[in-house]
């Protein structure tokens, strides 16, 4: 409550950095095992340690990295995986736009801060009161980044000692992760399930006809699913209660409140 006003006067860079690092602990707990699963799956697909680690280090976007592994293993071309990734990660555009309005004027290291925007770092940062400072965001994002990168390497390395039957069962982990990401959104509104099922059935139909290559099948299916969803439910994932609409009309920067609703739908994906 008073913290917001105090922050402005006492915001030394090192104190902000430590606040950011502390705020990142829940992310660390979520990212580390997920990254281990990524490393394990990569190893199971006979990718090299360097491949798995370099992807985690330079891409740093969980859900799309898992998707890339899935598409790669079914032989989809590089360019098509990149297009699917663009679609999948374009939501960060909304988050970045929302953060840009909260960051203190004259903040430094913006290109670095932009690199660390994920669903989870965004969720934690927007929950904080007051202006956001570079130190805080850098602290928050570095912990997330380091746990993602180290989890990948450790998961890959541990995979070596697992027995064969267990390694075969690991094939399901990618899809279990997708379900774990989707189900919380379905609990909030059946619309998420409908859109997912629509895109899935479209993908199935396209792959049966064999008109397009596998990479295009999934891109078209994603566009059809999300497009049909936007036509059917122009108000978004959760039907806006009257209270929220009243708030939105009181606050001029409307896109920000929209983006925050979008973000809460995505919580849990990396």
């Amino acid at each position, binding site marked *: 409550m008073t913290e917001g006003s105090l922050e402005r006067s006492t915001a030394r860079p090192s104190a902000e950095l430590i606040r950011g690092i502390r705020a990142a602990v829940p992310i660390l707990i979520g990212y580390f095992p*997920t990254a281990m699963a990524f490393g394990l799956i990569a190893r199971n697909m006979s*990718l090299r340690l360097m491949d798995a680690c370099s*992807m985690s280090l330079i*891409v740093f*976007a969980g859900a*799309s990295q898992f*998707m*890339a592994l899935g598409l*790669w293993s079914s032989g989809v071309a*590089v360019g098509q*995986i*990149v297009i*699917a*990734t*663009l*679609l*999948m*990660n374009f*939501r*960060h*555009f*909304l988050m*970045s*736009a929302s953060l*840009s*309005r909260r960051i203190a004027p004259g903040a430094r290291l*913006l*290109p670095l801060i*932009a*690199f660390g925007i994920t669903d989870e770092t965004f969720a934690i940062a927007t929950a904080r009161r007051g202006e956001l400072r570079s130190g805080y965001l850098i602290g928050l994002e570095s912990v997330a980044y380091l746990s993602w990168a180290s989890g990948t390497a450790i998961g890959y390395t541990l995979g070596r000692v697992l027995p064969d*039957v267990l390694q*075969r069962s690991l*094939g*399901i982990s*990618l*899809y*279990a*992760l997708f*379900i*774990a*990401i*989707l189900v919380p959104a379905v609990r909030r509104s059946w619309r*998420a399930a409908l*859109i*997912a099922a629509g*895109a*899935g059935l479209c*993908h*199935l139909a396209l*792959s049966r006809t064999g008109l397009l290559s596998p990479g295009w099948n999934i891109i078209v299916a994603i566009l*059809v*699913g*999300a497009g049909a*969803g*936007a036509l059917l*439910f122009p*108000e978004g994932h959760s039907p806006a209660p009257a209270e929220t609409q009243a708030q939105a009309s009181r606050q001029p920067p409307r*896109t920000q409140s*929209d983006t925050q609703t979008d973000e809460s739908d995505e919580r*849990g994906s990396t």
Partner: protein
Amino acid sequence: MRFLLLSLGMMVVTYLPRLLPLAVLRNIRLPRCLSVFLSFIPFAAIGALIIPGGLGAVDGDWVLSAVGLAAAFVSAWLLRNIVVTVVLSILAVYLALLLM
């Protein structure tokens, strides 16, 4: 080498949407319909990944795969924890593999 190329391509298309609003287009506002469309993409992507790919996840065997998917769904619904869900799903498939 091709995989590194993939990572580089993915980095470009992931970093640009993160960077542009923050560094260049500050205070941008998207039309409502576009932001709704973008917010639906992850659901559609996950659906298209699970159907039909998920049914061949374990040795290409749809029964084994369905066991794991069902276990994941029940666990995600009841326990709401990503890590536990992944572990329980793997465990269910592991037990099914041992029984078959």
